[in-house]
């Protein structure tokens, strides 16, 4: 029952609307020219939408819901699309992290986007790999040369663009290489008072620190700092302690390594003591 009631209401409202429009139209036509299209359209649409039916028919008919838009109802009606440029925020922006958006409004210049930095390097790498596949040995050689260059870069003259030191600096570089291989410092003076010796060392350290600081500020990559030695000695835990092994539960506990150390035995197939120990560790893995 409620279905039928609703249907009637709909019909009546449509009809009354049409009547009202008719009144308006008549009034308009009395003042201006008669309208043709509108009447036709209105009537045709009415026909298509709801064919004229008698009251009885209507009462018998079941409510079929809103007419399907496909069956010719909206054929002539214009399609209205509401477009608002500000509302359809693209997904990429929504996806963009808040950090990225915030970085644009920060006081710093906006970050260069990732593609700008990755793209050129990628292409370069690719061309290298494809163009001339270098042998492993050559790569290693270049690597060593680069390491040496970095290590001795502070001796290079900033005015000339040669990659090898010349003159006095060349001798210095040679000296440093000899020292790196375990040679003695031939340039060092032999008998220097302690205070002066300390002063020299301190000055050297300061100079080195300053050079590193300046380079860092200027964004220059320097060689690795090798002056600070990391002691591999066992930490002195204070008090008394055994020179070998460790005390646990008032007993001296010796590990396998310690035993091997005492016996002076090397690992299977190993050479010297130190070397042997290392190898043993590796095999254990």
């Amino acid at each position, binding site marked *: 029952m409620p279905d039928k009631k609703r249907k009637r209401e709909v019909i009546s409202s449509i009809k009354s609307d049409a009547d009202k429009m008719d009144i308006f139209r008549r009034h308009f036509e009395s003042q201006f020219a008669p309208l043709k299209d509108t009447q036709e359209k209105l009537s045709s649409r009415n026909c298509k939408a709801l064919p004229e039916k008698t009251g009885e028919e209507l009462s018998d008919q079941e409510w079929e819901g809103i007419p399907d838009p496909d069956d010719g109802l909206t054929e002539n009606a214009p399609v209205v699309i509401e477009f608002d*440029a500000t509302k*359809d925020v693209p997904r990429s922006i929504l996806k963009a992290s808040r950090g990225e958006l915030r970085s*644009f*409004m920060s006081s710093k*210049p906006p970050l260069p986007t990732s593609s*700008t930095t990755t793209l050129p390097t990628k292409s370069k790498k690719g061309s290298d790999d494809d163009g001339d596949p270098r042998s492993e040995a050559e790569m290693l050689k270049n690597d060593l040369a680069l390491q040496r260059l970095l290590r001795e870069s502070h001796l290079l003259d900033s005015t000339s663009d040669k990659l090898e030191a010349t003159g006095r600096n060349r001798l210095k570089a040679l000296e440093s290489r000899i020292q790196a291989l375990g040679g003695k410092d031939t340039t060092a003076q032999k008998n220097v008072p302690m205070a002066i010796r300390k002063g020299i060392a301190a000055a050297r350290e300061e100079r080195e620190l300053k050079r590193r600081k300046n380079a860092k500020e*200027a*964004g*220059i990559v320097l060689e690795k700092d090798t002056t600070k030695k990391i002691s591999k000695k066992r930490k002195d835990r204070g008090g008394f302690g055994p020179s070998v092994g460790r005390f646990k539960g008032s007993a001296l506990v010796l590990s396998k390594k310690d035993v091997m150390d005492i016996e002076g035995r090397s690992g299977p197939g190993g050479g010297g003591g130190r070397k042997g120990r290392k190898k043993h560790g590796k095999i254990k893995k």
Partner: protein
Amino acid sequence: MTTATITPTAPIQFTTHSSLRRRLVLSTLTGAPLRISQIRATSLKPGLTPYEFSLLRLLDSLTNGTFIEISLTGTTLLYKPGLITGNSGRPLVHTIPENCPRGATYFLEVLALLAPFSKSAFSVTLKGGVITSATTEDYSVDTFRTALLPVYASFEVTRGIEVRTLARSSGPLGAGEVHFLHGHQVRLPRTLHLQNPGRVKRIRGVSYSTGVSAGNNARMIEVARGVLNRFIADVYVFSDVSKAQVVPADYGKEGAVEKAAGNMKGRAGGKTKKTGVGFGISLVAETSLGTMYAADAFAGPAEAAEDVGKRAAVMLLEEIRIGGVVGRHGLMSVLVMMMMGVEGDVGRVVLGKEAVGEEFIAGVRDLKRVFGGEVAVRDGENGSLVVSVVGRGVGNVGRKVA
């Protein structure tokens, strides 16, 4: 080092006030003294303007040993630059005359060009008649930060650079405040080889309004996006609303601020007024390879916000049409940086044909006079021009040792 840059005993002669700022910057970078005569000699107000004096004062405070001699009428200027020392550790506050018609970028562009070649870091606060928005001759501070500084990034000048807009203000009588920090000093800038500008992938922007309704921002953004969204989806314009600055009623006259002596709270019995009211928009298009194109529009008298937004968007499209690996806003900076580069290294940039105009030619002529180096321009692919610049190896005098 060339003889032209190191021992110019006689100052280089220039006339008129045209591109005075650029000439001063070039001179400061190379250390070549200048003599500029006939500065507005036939004008009713002859000689240097207050903001040009202000620029000279700024240059003086950032260098060591600069010698400036100005004739009585101000129509002749002798400028012997000193060493660019910067002001590390001691922040510098530079007060711009209140009636300065130029935007803050007039000074900021100079700072950005000098700072990489300074001995120590720059930290300069611009105060007084600072106009952060775009003016008829200068672009806005936002464009400076988001579009010009990335140009320097291509020379690997990136670290410790900040532009803090502490107080926004529009023209004609500005009262803003901008803090410029620059901590990346280089020995020599990298040689630039940019052949391909890439394609525009995103557009960002800032719309700002000072002392007017925030609705203006929304209206500008809506129209600008309406124009730009047809071409690219990734458009995002930020909105920045700020209050107008309160200044003494006779602001703009000499010594008005000193007379008020800080009595500027509220209306102060009608002795104050608001200044720097207005709105504008700055748009920046970024390409896939990092090129920036920028456009700025500022509202004229009684101009609707919609018109301003549309103007900016159309200007940006025009910039993109002209193309090139560097937008026109950063053209001179790029040329100067390339000339400062490693001696003998040839850098190349591809520019749009229309980017090479009167301004460009004048700039290149100045470069030739001061640096002694020329710029080669030849036709490139599909209507572009390839500009090659040979580095002169001037670099940073304060940082001879790396």
